[in-house]
């Protein structure tokens, strides 16, 4: 999930990712009148063959960008989220698998605008990460300004990895070693969020699994075959922020300060 102000390049980023990995890319603009069928697909009666033909919806692709996900109704949101969690779609009693690899990137605007349906915690939890792009730095902005249109640059992106490469990386990241000391640290982190008054609720097991997955992948990206605490610390804000809420929280954005507390107060080695 990417969350930022409008116009910060959320869509561009996901499009660029799809290009670089050569993934089949679909973008769904979530609006308040979007229905689950618009995402999943629909069976249409074919008069020639006298049967229903399934027309797959935009979800059947390798990278789905769910734009402004909080503008649609919970019913539609959950249709997307089922697909994300189970990697399969059930339409009219028939279960269909989604292509591999499957990424869902959702964007949402941070402002609680009229006519939005903020995602409940249960659904936020399904996102591996919540990122913020933030303003580009001086150099990047300059480069941006020198371009004619932003899409020029995106179109020019060449494929860097094949699907096989991606699968191979995923396999390797599962093999990254997480030692007992590291698991102890992760457990201390998780326990810190549980059973405390300032935390509205603690991290779920899915959350802790996500930490491990992300940390292992980060370690692999840094060229290591083992996870060090720094890996966990690096990915922790992105992975955990949206899963945490302070008990005084009103709008779901107190996660950041809680993560800072986690990082500062949980001892790395004991």
């Amino acid at each position: 999930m990417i969350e930022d102000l409008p116009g910060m390049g959320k869509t561009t980023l996901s499009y660029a990712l799809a290009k670089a990995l050569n993934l089949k890319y679909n973008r769904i603009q979530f609006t308040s009148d979007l229905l689950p069928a618009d995402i999943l697909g629909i069976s249409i009666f074919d008069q020639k063959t006298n049967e229903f033909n399934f027309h797959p919806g935009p979800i059947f692709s390798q990278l789905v960008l769910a734009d402004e996900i909080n503008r649609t109704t919970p019913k539609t949101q959950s249709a997307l989220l089922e697909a994300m969690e189970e990697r399969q779609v059930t339409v009219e009693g028939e279960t269909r698998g989604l292509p591999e690899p499957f990424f869902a990137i959702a964007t949402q605007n941070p402002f609680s605008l009229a006519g939005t349906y903020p995602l409940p915690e249960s659904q936020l939890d399904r996102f591996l990460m919540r990122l913020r792009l933030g303003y580009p730095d001086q150099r990047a902005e300059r480069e941006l300004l020198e371009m004619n249109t932003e899409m020029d640059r995106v179109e020019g992106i060449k494929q860097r990895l094949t699907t096989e490469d991606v699968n191979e990386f995923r396999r390797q990241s599962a093999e990254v070693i997480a030692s007992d000391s590291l698991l102890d640290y992760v457990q201390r982190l998780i326990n810190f969020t549980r059973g405390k008054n300032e935390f509205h609720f603690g991290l779920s097991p899915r959350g802790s699994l996500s930490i491990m997955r992300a940390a292992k992948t980060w370690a692999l990206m840094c060229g290591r075959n083992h996870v060090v605490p720094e890996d966990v610390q690096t990915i922790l804000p992105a992975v955990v922020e949206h899963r945490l809420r302070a008990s005084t929280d009103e709008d779901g954005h107190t996660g950041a300060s809680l993560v800072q507390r986690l990082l500062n107060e949980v001892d790395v080695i004991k």
Partner: protein
Amino acid sequence: MDINYQIPRSALIWVLVSVVIVLIPQTIRMPIWVTVIAAICILWRLLISQGKLNYPGRKIRIVVVLFTLIFSISQIRSIGIGLDSAVSLLALGFVFKLIEMRYKRDIYVVLSLCFVMSMVSFLYSQGIVTSAYIAMTVIIILCAMIACNRSSLILEAESTVKLAMKITFQALPLTIVLFMLFPRIAPLWAVPTQNNASGTGVSDEMSPGDISQLVRTSGLAFRVQFEEEVSLPNELLYWRGLVLDDYDGETWRRSRSRSAYGNAAAFGNFRFNWEGRMETNGIPLRYNVIMEPTQQPWIYGLHLAEPISSGIFLSRNFEMFNNGLISQRLSYDVASYIENQTDLFLTSSPRRNNIEIPAQGNERSLQFARELRAAVDTDREYALAVLNYFATNQYFYTLNPGLLGENRIDDFLFNTMEGFCEHYASAFAYLMRAVDIPARVVVGYQGAEYNPFENYMMVYQYNAHAWNEVWLEGEGWVRFDPTGAVSPTRIELGAEAALRDDPAFLDDFLFTAMRLGGMGWINTLRLRFDALEYEWNRRVVNYNEEVQFELLEELIGDVTESKAVLFLLIATALVMLGVGVAVIRVDRSAQRDPVVNLYVSIGKELEKIDLPRKRGEGPLHYRDRVIAERPELAEIMSELTELYVQLSYRSRTVDNLQRNQTRQLKAMLNQLRFKLSPLAKISGKV
């Protein structure tokens, strides 16, 4: 039945082991068949747990109760109401409870009884061996309690024992505080001491054969520690016990009736003005004696001893008496004026007492004495002449002298010519008295074994001895030892040396005999153990109300009740706090693996140069921060961190490589320390 009430198998084994351990010390005192019954009950319970036998039915239980009843009545009839019969009864009830042990609550009853039974041993002995054994017993009973309450998944005995030891050690500081400070309340009832215990040690009568009997035993009589380090030769170590001045032709007695010994103060107008009867211009030799119980009131000291401890009285003959029979170890302080003499003037009444001999018998000795006296000028010369006579004629020093006839002195002097110290002392005193020289027999101990480990002396029963004191004009009472004339070895080297070849000496004590044979390390071991026991007696067993009061006075000034209680409470609270903190800290570092501990100490080292590790800081970030601040540490920090990351995060199993790396890490920590020491000093100065 609820599973929670069932007895776990492992717990049962522990309970039975505790029962056996608790009963072992009692088996020597109980009738043998009580031990047999105990064994049967333990076996029965074991078979019940294996399903081979059933719990006893109502009939058996009634029989058992009746049996116990009859048993206790017969015990009381045969040995009276005493400790031994009570212990046997307790043991019987205790083992019968075993075969009734069905549920967990029964286990708790049995285990509580175990504690009671184990404490029974203290009624008999408070020595260091007993105490150590009871400590072990307590740990094992704790094991049983732990096993009872543990999940049946944890079966390893090792972890149970570890936990029990841990609990015991946690309780130790509080035990010490309570031991030192808790008020010592006199018991509401007195524990009857063993009524069959007979007095040991030197007796207040001496017939030929008495002392040679005593010399055959190897028991300890007392231990002595001198205040200043003095090396007294064996010839001076005459531990005076009693003065025997009444001779009836066979037995030497103390001329006062025994019935009064129970109350020493009433016994013999003790607080007489003895200072007038002696000059005390010498420097007194001060020492402390810890005496083993004798069931008799007299105690021992060197020549001309003046008691310092309260409750000890001096008699007319400068014997010392305790106020009451010595039924427990007794510690007392004494000062001896070994350079001085007593009774420069002898009044007529004691003079008369000390020259009395039976009117008839021993004609030959009388004749001999008169002739010898006529040949010399002074009493002293006469005494020396008698000694010389013993030395030059064929007299033997032996434990097994021949039997003596009607005229004992004659018979000994001119027929058998062999005897033990009592024969010589008896004959010598007779020969003195025969020519109207006041003389008396003194019984006590002579010689001592020096223990270099705690710097004290041990006096054993085989050091028992009898010698003489002769009153000489102008000199007072002078010690003469005719045994020394016959067997100089006895006096100079001690009974062990003199009697080594005598088959009757300590023949039933293999161990004792062995040390006389001179097995060096065994002797060292024995001396060390005795030193330990001596310390234990001095510091632990002798720690009584008086010593406690002194300690409190030293700690808090004048002792009032409320002050003492407050002090006890504060000390208790402090100790418990200390133990609590220690438990928390020890637990944490015990759980951490050595690598983490090493890394933590690295952080502590760097704290000295104000670069402590932050809580939430990973090793790599920490390294980078330290290097940024102190570029000179770049190399060592990188290596350290690399090793630590390898050890902590790179693999999940411990192998040899890792052990090597851990050692390396330790070495690097030392290197870092070395590097940091000058840096720390600089930053300290700044």
